[in-house]
């Protein structure tokens, strides 16, 4: 008997990294899960690796598009009959420059990826969750949603905005059986980090390894976090026992953020 038996979850991203870790943990606890990504090949590979049969479903599409974000939530309901858990998870930063050189386009892109996609999926999911008086929304934010590193201001701003959104919406739906929280992980060496970390590091005048070491040094545990750390909290929040936790910005950063 899993803690999420009968529950249906939708995760933006989810073929790899944190979203994948959360998806696997949800499936283990008995939930049905929709994951997402742009590449059908990576989606097929993720499904094969997860080996969860009909309990996991992949929908290809770009979470930077509003229409797709809304379709993804709708398609989850079409596939599994309801949506109980929404994890706006995709996000990142691929522009690394000091603010005086930051372009409008780069800032827009960072906000669409990190903030707008969270807003679009959350708004759509609430249409289903409010009538059923049950829901769990957990946005994957970041330690950078509470702190700030140089040259990734778009990412930092987007994650701070996600945290504000969660706090506000938590108060709106607080009495409706729906919780809204932000997960704030420290640095994790996901595929995304391997892809974008070197550019961010260069912008900070560091090597990639130097950037990872800096994240580790800033933590209390002196090492990076893992996707399993995030999945542990995600399962707790999604469970019935998570009903009393909302509007929280949960640090999963090995003791990095001071609050």
């Amino acid at each position: 008997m899993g803690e999420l038996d009968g529950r249906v979850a939708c995760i933006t991203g989810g073929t790899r990294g944190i979203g994948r870790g959360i998806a696997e943990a949800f499936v283990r606890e008995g939930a049905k899960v929709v994951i997402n990504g742009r590449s059908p090949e990576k989606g097929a590979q993720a499904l094969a690796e997860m080996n969860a049969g009909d309990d996991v479903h992949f929908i290809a599409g770009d979470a930077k598009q509003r229409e797709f974000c809304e379709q993804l939530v709708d398609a989850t309901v079409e596939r599994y009959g309801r949506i109980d858990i929404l994890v706006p998870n995709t996000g990142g930063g691929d522009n690394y420059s000091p603010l005086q050189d930051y372009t409008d386009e780069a800032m827009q892109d960072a906000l669409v990826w990190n903030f707008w996609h969270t807003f679009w999926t959350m708004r759509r999911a609430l249409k289903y969750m409010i009538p059923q008086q049950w829901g769990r929304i957990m946005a994957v934010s970041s330690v950078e949603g509470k702190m700030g590193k140089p040259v990734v201001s778009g990412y930092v701003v987007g994650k701070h905005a996600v945290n504000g959104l969660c706090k506000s919406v938590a108060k709106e739906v607080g009495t409706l059986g729906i919780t809204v929280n932000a997960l704030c992980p420290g640095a994790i060496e996901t595929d995304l980090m391997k892809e974008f970390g070197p550019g961010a590091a260069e912008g900070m005048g560091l090597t990639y390894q130097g950037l990872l070491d800096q994240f580790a040094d800033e933590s209390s545990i002196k090492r990076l976090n893992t996707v399993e750390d995030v999945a542990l909290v995600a399962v707790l929040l999604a469970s019935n026992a998570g009903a009393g936790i909302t509007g929280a910005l949960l640090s999963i950063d090995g003791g990095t953020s001071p609050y």
Partner: protein
Amino acid sequence: MGKLEGRVACITGGTRSIGRAMAEAFLREGAKVVVNGRDAAKGATAVAEMGGGDNVAFFAGDAAKQATVEGLIDFTIERFGQLDICCLNSGGVQNTAPVAQMTDEEWNLEIDWNLNQVFWGMRKALQHMIPRDYGRILVTSSVEGKAGKPGISGYNTTKHAVLGLVKSAAKEVGPTGITVNAILPGLIETDIVLATGPSSAASMGITYDEMVAMFVADSAIKRMNTVDEVAAVAVMLASEAARNFQGCMFPVDGGTLPY
């Protein structure tokens, strides 16, 4: 297979309310548990009600006394051979005088119960845990560890102070196998709140029911929290999987605290 199989826990307080719910959850997950309280009769009742057989024991004594806190840890190690999880959970509102009228004696009662207890227990537990390179220390703070209400300055002060202790100790044991974390529950109508709530409320110039309503109104969920909501977080933080949670202040307050 429980999440705490083979682990040994001790809990200051624990015959009732939050500590009791933690004890029951730990037992369900396979741990051996020692609970504590001042009243031997209540202790015997609690042990009988929990139905944990030889896996649960009671240690009598006042958690505001150093001899009790240190004795509880010694007793736990004697009885079950080790100590893996130390929950410094006892505490409450001892006095409700406005700061202008507070006596040194009243002030020190609160410091001993809510702060020194945690220090005595943490120090002693760490001395046992550091050589074994494994441990989970959980401190029950409060929503009042970050906020503040009139008339309960001793409680507010000490619940803030234990968060400082947690953060500092977490950095000392940082990368080791020991973690130190705090849980911050919102108002729960425990026996201790039923006992001391009326005088707290009177010091605020309101009735007990009005005080409860004030806490509820401050939350997003517009209800009190439950002991089971706190116990679920305790199980997570006490588990081996939570190795990367360090110095975390985990709110279980229904969206009350802004940070």
